[in-house]
């Protein structure tokens, strides 16, 4: 099915001139596995765009003007919530963080994220992502609490030097958007693999000097579908919109496993 925007005669964008609006052909993958598990089609829409228009803006324009049934998940529109991850021209990206103008393409194809079950159209199920995230126990694991630190029960922060913070801080920027898992070639074949997101978060806490759960966390990821199944393709790090480097985190965890890591840790 091909739908044209009102007043748009061609799907080819023209060079921007005063008074002339550029258009892009937005190809949206359509599927509804709950009703039909086999059919995946594309609907084309000619959408006007400006220099600042993001792919999410274009999708919402389609929903508003042409077809409100397009299934898409979004929330913050500022690359903070991690909801609008999708394949944009074959690469996992956040729709709200990708400007159409930067894609340098007259056709923008949007598809659901790879390696995740499709709910409908562009929305995928994140159950496995969150389950794997929970499995690495993403919290400070220690017996005492900050309340126990003073005899009079006053709040007191766990002390940490800037150098200790530097060990893990970039991994704390993860927004759980799932782009790394969508880009991971191992996840494409191994459905039991923990994935770069969960492994990077495991490192985020293993590398945190305040954490005391290193041994149990390392034991958890030391599985036949755990950390050793990473082949270091590095695609996870390339697609992360927040600059997190999961591939490096995984190698750092391997360092711990092989006895090279954690020299400056208070464990």
């Amino acid at each position: 099915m091909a739908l044209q925007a009102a007043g748009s005669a061609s799907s080819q964008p023209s060079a921007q001139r005063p008074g002339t609006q550029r258009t892009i052909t937005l190809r949206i993958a359509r599927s509804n596995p709950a009703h039909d598990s086999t059919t995946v089609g594309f609907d084309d829409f000619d959408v006007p765009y400006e220099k600042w228009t993001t792919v999410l803006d274009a999708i919402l324009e389609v929903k508003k003007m042409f077809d409100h049934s397009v299934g898409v998940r979004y929330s913050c529109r500022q690359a903070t919530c991690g909801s609008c991850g999708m394949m944009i021209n074959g690469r996992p990206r956040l729709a709200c963080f990708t400007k159409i103008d930067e894609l340098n393409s007259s056709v923008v194809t949007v598809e659901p994220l790879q390696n995740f079950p499709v709910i409908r159209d562009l929305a995928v199920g994140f159950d496995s992502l969150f389950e794997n995230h929970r499995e690495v126990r993403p919290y400070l694991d220690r017996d005492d609490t900050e309340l126990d630190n003073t005899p009079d029960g006053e709040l007191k922060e766990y002390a940490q030097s800037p150098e200790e913070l530097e060990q893990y801080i970039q991994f704390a920027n993860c927004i759980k958007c799932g782009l790394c898992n969508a880009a991971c070639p191992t996840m494409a074949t191994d459905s039991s693999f923990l994935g770069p997101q969960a492994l990077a978060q495991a490192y985020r806490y293993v590398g945190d000097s305040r954490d005391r759960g290193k041994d149990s966390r390392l034991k958890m990821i030391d599985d036949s579908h755990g950390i050793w199944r990473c082949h270091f393709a590095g695609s996870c790090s390339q697609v992360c919109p927040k600059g997190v480097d999961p591939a490096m985190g995984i190698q750092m965890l391997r360092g711990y496993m092989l006895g090279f890591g954690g020299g400056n840790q208070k464990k």
Partner: protein
Amino acid sequence: MASAILRESTIMKIHYGTALAAVALVAVHVLMRLTSGGFAASLEYETVLANYRFLPYALMLEIILVLLSIHGFNGLRVILLELRQGPRYEKAVSYGCVAAMFALIAYGSRTIIMTNMGMV
């Protein structure tokens, strides 16, 4: 299952260790081929028999056989585990690879021992 007996990290340490050791020994093996009268001559039947009958060299071949069998079959196990998942399948793959590894080592060792003892 192999991974139930050994932790995955232990298996992978063995995997990396056997790779490094095999690279060193195979390098010696290749150099021996090239330095013993040329590569073509080193493949002649009598030369091969002579190599097997030279005990230190036969021992090195046996070690290479063991190293490459361990490394190769664990590599195969890893590939097969990534191909499909499921408890029964994974158990079959792990046991199958261990069995195939022992079978290959046994068959290769038989060849080395028989030739070394002059039975061939």
